[in-house]
């Protein structure tokens, strides 16, 4: 699956990182708890979250997460988008809730992350 596929499945729009839409994604995770994301995620993952702050981008950058999907139509600030751009991360926004977005992606064959990063 590619980031473009993710965008179509969650009926999302791209806010930054249009050039990355053809990058592959292998897994996804949905969480508002960055502590958990830091503990469980591996790379080429999509992060679906309803939490909007700069630490979502920092967490994603540390883990080589390639795409963040903000759920429930939330709009990240310019600062967040600039950080994501600098970190080479695509940012999408969807009107779906986190639960629905995750469910749609899972149904379309995108599995969850493994439990360990190493």
């Amino acid at each position, binding site marked *: 699956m590619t980031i473009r596929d993710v965008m179509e499945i969650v009926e999302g729009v791209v806010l930054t990182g249009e050039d990355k839409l053809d990058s592959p994604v292998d897994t996804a995770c949905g969480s508002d708890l960055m502590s958990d994301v830091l503990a469980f995620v591996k790379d080429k993952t999509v992060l679906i979250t309803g939490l909007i702050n*700069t630490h979502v981008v920092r967490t994603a950058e540390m883990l080589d997460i390639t795409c963040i999907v903000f759920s429930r139509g939330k709009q990240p600030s310019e600062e967040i988008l600039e950080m994501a751009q600098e970190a080479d991360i695509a940012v999408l926004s969807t009107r779906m809730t986190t639960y629905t977005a995750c469910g749609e992606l899972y149904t379309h064959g995108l599995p969850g992350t493994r439990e360990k*990063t190493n």
Partner: protein
Amino acid sequence: MAILLEQVFPVEAGAYATAGEASTTIKRKLKQLGIDANVLRRVSVASYEVELNLVIHSMGGTLTLQVDPEMVTLISKDVGPGIPDIDKAMTEGFSTANEEARTLGFGAGMGLPNMKRNATTFDIQSQVGVGTTIMMGFALRG
């Protein structure tokens, strides 16, 4: 062992907005050195966790990065308040983080165990009223 790179980053207590800047710089520097992607991710996660801990829990401190041909080393050193019970602090789910940290998505009591899991070697020393020092090594070769 010859040190290839050493850099000290001051970390301010309570500076939530800038927390993670040192870790971002560390990650980018190590990437420039061409460090293996898996090791790089482990160093980055541990670095971000320890930097957040300095911001959330300490009265200020430093994060030091050292690189030699065998190892990446991260040293976190703060000036207090110290951890009364290290075993408890190392338990997953135990947290003393404040509301501000939780609002940002942290403070789930995963930080120290996650650092230990990602590092090759992990050592924590703490004395109440003095401070905490955490030293983590990440082997560059299997």
